[in-house]
């Protein structure tokens, strides 16, 4: 079942005061997200990720194109009841406490009384806000605000959540918590659409990713399709290695990088049998430390795609007049 469908979505912003010219922030984006998918929307800063999320939540209106969320237009109140949204670097009413803020938002979803209080209490426990929940939000750190932001995004037990850079501002423990939360939501049947420029998060969480550069979708698909998971080579680390012996191994290794005196990281192609190479190096007096397979990562792919797109002449930025 389709949870979210985007067709030829474009957004122009006017730039300049006296002679405003349209600046295309998003160019003909088309995407289909199935129910219960975890979709990672990736791109460098300024690529159009936040613009897309704001269009999906109707904080801004599209210049052209169509959005359908759960089969309805994005401004529909029924859609609003069934979605959750965490903006980038969220700001909340700082005169309220975390409890009061969530009770306010709960009220907008029709929650009230004891049921509302219980839900708010559970959620704050879930995102790790303890005794601080009775402090005004102006006293919260960035990471704590991000946690409150996550809590308000899932307050209504949404069918789809849109998360804009959910890991930003969080320490390693916080990131681990958010990853666990996203997977828990997925297990509950929720569809998750999140933007990020932190690729390890996407790699750990997503069933599919889309990469956007300069307002245009470069590629979208399952990670297994995008990335070759085959081993492309080996990295072997040896100690007490005499550099004089390296030329003898020239045919079997790609390169050797000196880490410190006698310690080398040796990169070998996939045809090389790593155990035999290690045995031969040991026979020449070196000591084995570690061996790891080399795989193409999302980061390699991302860097390659962004570089390829940027090498092209700029398309779809400042639009021609008329």
């Amino acid at each position: 079942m389709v949870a979210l469908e985007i067709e030829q979505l474009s957004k122009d912003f006017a730039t300049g005061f006296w002679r405003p010219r349209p600046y295309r922030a998003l160019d003909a984006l088309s995407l289909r997200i199935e129910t219960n998918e975890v979709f990672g929307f990736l791109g460098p800063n300024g690529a159009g990720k936040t613009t897309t999320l704001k269009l999906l939540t109707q904080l801004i209106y599209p210049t052209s194109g169509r959005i359908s969320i759960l089969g309805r237009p994005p401004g529909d109140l029924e859609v609003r009841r069934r979605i959750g949204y965490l903006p980038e670097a969220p700001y909340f009413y700082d005169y309220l406490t975390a409890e009061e803020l969530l009770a306010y938002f709960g009220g907008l979803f029709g929650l009230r009384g004891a049921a509302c209080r219980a839900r708010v209490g559970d959620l704050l426990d879930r995102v790790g806000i303890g005794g601080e929940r009775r402090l005004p939000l102006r006293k919260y750190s960035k990471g704590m605000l991000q946690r409150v932001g996550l809590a308000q995004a899932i307050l209504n037990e949404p069918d789809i959540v849109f998360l804009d850079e959910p890991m930003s501002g969080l320490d390693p423990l916080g990131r681990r918590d958010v990853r666990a939360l996203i997977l828990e939501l997925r297990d509950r049947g929720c569809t998750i659409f999140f933007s990020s420029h932190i690729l390890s998060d996407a790699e750990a969480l997503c069933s599919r990713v889309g990469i956007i550069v300069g307002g245009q979708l470069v590629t979208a698909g399952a990670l297994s399709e995008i990335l070759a998971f085959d081993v492309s080579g080996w990295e072997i680390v040896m100690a007490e290695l005499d550099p004089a012996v390296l030329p003898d191994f020239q045919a079997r290794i790609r390169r050797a990088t000196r880490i410190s005196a006698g310690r080398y990281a040796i990169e070998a192609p996939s045809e090389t049998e790593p155990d035999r190479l290690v045995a031969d190096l040991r026979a020449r007096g070196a000591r084995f430390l570690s061996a790891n397979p080399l795989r193409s990562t999302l980061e390699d792919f991302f860097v390659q795609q962004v570089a390829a797109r940027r090498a092209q002449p700029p398309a779809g930025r400042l639009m021609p007049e008329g």
Partner: protein
Amino acid sequence: MVRVIGLVAYHVFKESVRDKVLYNLVLFAVLMIGASYLLGQLTAGQDVKIIKDLGLAASSMFGLFIAVFIGVGLVWKEVDRRSVHNLLVKPIRRHQFIIGKFLGLAVTLLVNLAVMAIALYAVLALMAWREPSLVKASVDAPVLDPRLLIAFGLLYVQLLVVTSVALCFSTFSSPLLSAALTAGLYVVGHFNADLAHFENVVASPAAAWLAKAMYYLLPNLAPFDVKLAVVHGQPIAAGFVALTAGYGVLYMAAMITLASLIFARRDFK
């Protein structure tokens, strides 16, 4: 729908309480008590009139400060700080947000004016109790004149008109500019009646037409000010009060509709 608007309004009021807006009431009380004490020393007979005049003028001034300075930030602050991004993705329509914001400030102003009215009556009662001869001396109007409430009521409607103007500016302009424009309209609004008969003083039909257009467009705030009539015990017709209040309600409805239309079309970048 009513519940959603009520929630927004309740939180505007809550914010004004937590931001210590109601502290101005303490200042008002100090001013009233201080003035009554000083006037008691200086004059005889006229002090009741002066206290009434001062009480109404101070209520008007404090109310105006609240209406303008909170009004111009009502929407702008939310957009500027981006708190609106969390709120508007919830099941709430943009015009409900605007109406809720207006009603929240309306409640804040109502509480303010109610407390000020009570304080003014308390000071007057104290003066009458301390100096029973005052009751005889104040021939124009009784010391505890119930018609003071008419003055407070019309003042409240006037402040709501000012709030609706400030709110409307707040949907598209920065607080500083909005405050300047609202204050400007407040001043112009007191001289608005002069524009209605501008054709008697200018020859150009275009200028007269423009003046007429301005007369209908700008708020006419002078009729809301019945301070002098109340203080001097002059009659105020019920029809006049109803018509003035009705005009105020229509004007603020138009302003809130305009604010909602502007806000509904905005992109929140």
